[in-house]
């Protein structure tokens, strides 16, 4: 069984990109992460609960942070990340991946945020949590994540930017995506993405500066 597994792993290595192979011997490198992920996906497709657990533990906080910054709301972010992992879990046994798992999960999160925004337009309910500090200062009682003060401030400031700018800044700064990749995700030109990034950073800078001086 172990030999079969190693054999399968070796075959998978053959399909890795050249740049990934170069990193194989470097501990803690990007490729170690990629290799570990490929191994986890292989196990996950065999129905391994431990693999799903490891993937969840490895990426949940990163995805939560992304979702918080994109939505400006912890409650929504939690729902989104749970949905991303639930869909992922349902693909067990038939999950195929060409790129990196991290990138796949980030894109799934982004899609969920976009879907959620579309659905929200249909809703009538009011939520002004971010609008003003209210008497009920208590946190939401059953929340999954506790944000640092920096993340709360950042999320508030990001909520003041147009969504497209917010997306560009988050994907560039937090997910380390190239402008080309972001342009392809936003179905727009690279120059538009550059512009969104520049304007967004300017606005964010002024918002966070005023926060610091308060």
């Amino acid at each position: 069984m172990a030999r079969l597994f190693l054999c399968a792993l070796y075959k998978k290595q053959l399909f890795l990109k050249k740049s990934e192979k170069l990193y194989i011997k470097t501990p803690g490198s990007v490729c170690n992460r990629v290799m570990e992920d490929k191994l986890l996906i292989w196990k996950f497709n065999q129905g391994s609960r431990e693999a799903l657990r490891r993937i969840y533990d490895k990426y949940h906080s990163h995805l939560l942070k992304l979702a918080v910054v994109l939505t400006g709301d912890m409650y929504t972010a939690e729902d989104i990340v749970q949905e991303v992992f639930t869909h992922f879990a349902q693909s067990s046994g038939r999950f195929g991946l060409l790129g990196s798992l991290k990138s796949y999960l980030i894109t799934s999160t982004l899609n969920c945020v976009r879907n959620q925004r579309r659905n929200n337009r249909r809703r009538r309910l009011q939520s002004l949590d971010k609008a003003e500090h209210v008497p009920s200062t208590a946190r939401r009682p059953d929340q999954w994540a506790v944000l640092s003060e920096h993340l709360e401030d950042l999320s508030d400031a990001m909520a003041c930017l147009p969504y497209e700018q917010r997306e560009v800044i988050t994907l560039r700064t937090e997910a380390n995506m190239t402008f080309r990749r972001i342009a392809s995700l936003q179905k727009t030109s690279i120059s538009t993405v550059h512009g969104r990034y520049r304007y967004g950073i300017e606005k964010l800078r002024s918002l966070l500066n005023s926060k610091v001086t308060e």
Partner: protein
Amino acid sequence: MKSAEDIKRYFQKSTLSTNPEKHEAIFEKIQCAQDQLKTTTPASYRLNLRRKIMKSPITKLSAATVIIIAVLTGIFLLDNSTTGVAWGEVLEKAEQIPTVIFDTTVEITYSESEKHQFQAENYVAADYGIRVNIYHNGELGTIQYKLPHKKVVYVIRPLQKKYKRKDLSDEQVALGHDRDDPRMWVKAITSGDYSELGRADINGVIVEGIETKITGEANGVMRLWVDVETNLPVRIEVEELGMESGQMRPHKFVMDNFQWDVELDESVFEPNIPPDYEQM
């Protein structure tokens, strides 16, 4: 902040931690999705199996017997059920009511001898929004108007003769949960792993209560007391640790004096800021 690099550093400093119990609970749900996949069999297979079973007269008779026993057991259980609050229906009923007025008391403990307390009157109307009158030491210190239909929030401080206006994006309006709306708390308490507190009398109203623990850093408890006759909330209590002035401090938060389904005029939700008030 002088460059995009500074913003990047700000992103790096922005972290979050997760509540371990909630983390486990969410993973269990995710794992269920994976497990369901393993146990799901094709519909055609289930249909064939059903056909095979129902062809046999003995199996048919056994199935009929099982159904009769199940029905009789159900009737027996229903006959012995006790009357009380139907917890599953509390939120549903409260959500159908368009208006509610209630009071809030917040107490933050800084030390044994230093406690800060303030009260608020809350007006919630689905058609107009939320108004909160906040009293500090018995004086009306702040009035907040959250008007989602007009996409705006006003904060007025009568003592200082100042006000603040904040426009809301469509997104903020649409998010759909407000901590000043008691229904959010009812949802949190009834959807949790709650324990029953039994009956009590609150100002002459017979109520039944439940309690849900708040785990993690906040480490506290939420209680919901519901009128046994109307099935509507009478009192909501939250005790937990919350961040205040850079330190985790005990917070006590009570919502009571509920008046459900009262008539609220639109004028209640009109800020009417006097002309001599300055913008903050």
